[in-house]
């Protein structure tokens, strides 16, 4: 465990915890981008450069912007501010802590996690592209179909139907 990993881990956990804990929703999304960027840096640390850059483009670029737009479009000034947490927030916190305890127990007691680090693989983008176009071409096409369906579906769901009636 290196100092780089520790710094990135602290940054990622702080960003995501702030994203789930702050009261202002826009601040939450800003903290979330820090967390996503930290995860991307962890991918780079694990020699998965392509996935790290994809993470930055998709999550920091697209998902965070989408969330900010959704927050802006659903923002309505109310006389009484809505509380940030649910009425039974303590129960949710206990469930999440229990899940973490079980996962940590399983990880610490597993023999699989005592792996030593294999030598660094020389993966370049050309190999990933060739694998996507040969071995994984069917999943790639299905993914394209899924993304198209999701795009059309999101537009249809979010469309304002009152304008059609007029």
């Amino acid at each position: 465990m290196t100092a780089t990993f520790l710094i990135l881990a602290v940054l990622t956990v702080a960003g995501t915890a702030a994203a789930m804990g702050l009261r202002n929703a826009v601040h939450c999304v800003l903290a979330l981008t820090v967390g996503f960027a930290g995860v991307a840096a962890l991918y780079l640390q694990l020699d998965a450069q392509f996935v790290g850059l994809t993470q930055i483009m998709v999550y920091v670029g697209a998902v965070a912007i989408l969330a900010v737009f959704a927050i802006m479009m659903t923002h309505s000034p109310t006389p009484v501010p809505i509380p940030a947490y649910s009425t039974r927030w303590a129960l949710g916190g206990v469930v999440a802590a229990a899940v973490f305890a079980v996962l940590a127990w399983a990880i610490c007691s597993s023999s699989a996690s005592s792996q030593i680090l294999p030598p660094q693989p020389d993966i370049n983008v050309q190999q990933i592209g060739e694998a996507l176009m040969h071995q994984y071409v069917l999943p790639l096409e299905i993914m394209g179909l899924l993304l198209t369906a999701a795009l059309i579906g999101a537009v249809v769901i979010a469309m304002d139907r009152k304008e059609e009636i007029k």
Partner: protein
Amino acid sequence: MSSLQSYLLLSALLFSIGLAGALTRRNAILVLIGIELMLNAANLNFIAFWRFGPTPSKLTGIMFAIFSISVAAAEAAVGLGIILAAYRHSKTTDLDQMNSLKG
């Protein structure tokens, strides 16, 4: 403490933070973000297991992570669309007030 173990523990912590957010927040958009965080934790596990696995030159973990990121992006787009539609219907994103199906 081995390095794979530290990555797995970090991933479990990210998953729990996302779960806590999804269970405790009242804003529907932040609940969706919590689900995205849980998916991110799973991706981190894919990459960590790929890197520490016996054959990291086989690209399996990278492919899993790429497809998982694509599905998560589609899920975010459709989820936010559903939240916008629900907001137009009930004029709120507060999940405690979206109770019109409650018996």
